[in-house]
């Protein structure tokens, strides 16, 4: 027997008790006489034992979860964590592809007054169909979700995702804004997924269908988006042509930065509550903040023009603020951040500071 060459193999047989008696004898005498060999051999034994123990434990844990699920068939909904199985993505995608057939026409419309030229104006929330298209790229995300599932098997899966958009904070304690059409009128529940992957449930406070603004709040008590107050402030009046702007949004599972400028003072068909931007934007970026170089929020993205490339429309922050004033129950407008901490920073630093306050909004249908 050449123990040195295949020490691990010997260790394995030794552990399972299948080492022939002659070999065992030789091994024992070697272990007794050669200290450095004994150390190495024990290392091998420990390694194999740990691997086997770890595997056994993993299988035992999996069985426990299964037993638990079978015995507690109606799981109690736990926290705000949403679990997705890959299967449910698929189901959602299939459901969405049916939905998209029936809703293609309505997606284009934003409000009745622009019906005639609907086809030029497309809101940019992201239907689940898009998720399907980029599904390959999201394999990693799915694996991540699967990991979450394995750790949290008990939370009930939510109903299917309908739209995703982007939202950003109005105050650090949970008030935020997104485009109204992301939420829609027949949603079941709204969750945000923050940049660190956490899900939080939110509820709708106020909205303006006409201006495509929705104000929501995270349900969780003592919730904070980030460590400090918001780094940005809100422009109270409209800004002139040519101002350089950028936006952060979630057209996919990762945060995306894009930049451009204000190309026209008013929006679609001269809408004074809007800006027209020269800015590439895609589905899922509805509700994204439009920020100028000084770190002032100028508005939020609402729609793109299907006619002119990279023509994007944004609802002005002025319209947002006037909606806040009409929110009777909570006067959020007085809590809006007053100190701008982005102004002196470089572009990349501004983005970094904003990351915690910009998040994906996921809307689940009934």
């Amino acid at each position, binding site marked *: 027997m050449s123990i040195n060459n*295949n020490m*691990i*193999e010997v260790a394995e047989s030794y552990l399972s008790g299948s080492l022939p008696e002659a070999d065992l004898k030789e091994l024992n005498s070697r272990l007794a006489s050669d200290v450095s060999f004994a150390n*190495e051999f024990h*290392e*091998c034994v420990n*390694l*194999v034992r*740990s*691997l*086997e*123990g*770890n*595997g*056994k*434990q*993993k*299988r*035992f*844990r999996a*069985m*426990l*979860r299964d*037993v*638990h699920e*079978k*015995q*507690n068939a109606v*799981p*109690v909904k*736990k*926290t705000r964590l949403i679990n997705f199985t890959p299967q449910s993505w698929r189901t959602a995608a299939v459901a969405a592809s049916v939905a998209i057939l029936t809703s293609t026409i309505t997606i284009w419309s934003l409000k009745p007054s622009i019906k005639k030229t609907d086809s030029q104006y497309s809101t940019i929330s992201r239907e689940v169909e898009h998720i399907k298209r980029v599904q390959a790229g999201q394999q990693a995300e799915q694996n991540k979700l699967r990991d979450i599932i394995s750790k*949290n*098997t*008990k*939370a009930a899966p939510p109903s299917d995702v309908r739209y995703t958009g982007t939202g950003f904070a109005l105050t650090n304690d949970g008030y935020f804004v997104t485009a109204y059409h992301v939420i829609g009128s027949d949603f079941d529940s709204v969750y945000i997924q923050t940049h660190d992957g956490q899900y939080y449930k939110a509820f709708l406070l106020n909205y303006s269908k006409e201006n495509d603004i929705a104000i929501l709040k995270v349900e969780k008590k003592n919730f904070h988006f980030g460590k400090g107050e918001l780094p940005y402030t809100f422009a109270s009046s409209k800004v002139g042509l040519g101002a350089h702007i950028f936006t952060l949004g979630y057209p996919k599972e990762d945060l995306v930065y894009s930049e451009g400028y204000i190309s026209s003072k008013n929006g679609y068909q001269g809408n004074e509550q809007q800006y027209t931007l020269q800015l590439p934007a895609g589905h899922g970026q509805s509700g994204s903040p439009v920020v100028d170089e000084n770190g002032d929020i100028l508005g939020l993205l609402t729609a793109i023009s299907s006619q002119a490339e990279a023509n994007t429309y944004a609802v002005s922050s002025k319209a947002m603020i006037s909606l806040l004033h009409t929110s009777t129950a909570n006067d959020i407008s007085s809590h809006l951040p007053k100190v701008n901490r982005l102004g002196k920073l470089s572009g990349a630093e501004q983005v970094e500071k904003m990351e915690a306050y910009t998040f994906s909004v996921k809307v689940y249908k009934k």
Partner: protein
Amino acid sequence: MVQSPVNNEHHLLAALAAGDRTATEQIYQQHFKIVNGWLIKNGGTSADAADVFQEAMVVLFGKAENEDFRLTCSIGTYLFAVSKRLWYKKLQRQSRDPVSLKYDTEGEEDEYGVAHEEDINVHHEREVHYEQLNTALDQIGEPCRSLLKAFYHNDKSMQEIAADFGYTNPENAKTQKYKCLTRLRKLFYGVQAK
């Protein structure tokens, strides 16, 4: 293994250690409810209860695997006591203010309290060890990572692995497995001079 429902706690533990499903189900059925009820009264949710109880089951599993292990109390008492400890620990980790969490001092717990504390510590050390092992496994590179996981975590036979990984026969797969183990050993224990 055991035809009729296991009714003796000693046998039940032996079956548990062997990963027997019936035994696990029986223990779960008998003892989860009380832990669940207690946890909800003490600031937890049913989901927390499932977490904590399953962790306690794993602690028990780890102990039961040891051949000369004998429980000094009933399985139910043990699981309840360990669950309590685990939950207090979890609360303490979450809270900055451990003072506000008072340990309950019911006599039945104190009697075995120290022993359970020791069991939990051993359990945590083992978890850390396994964690490190898994990290090493993740760093080892393919095909070793998948091969070793298939064998140790998913309990696949060398025949299955040979088929899945495209080795001409189980012997070749086995040779590869030992190569992988040698590499893992170096990674895990650090390179040791031969």
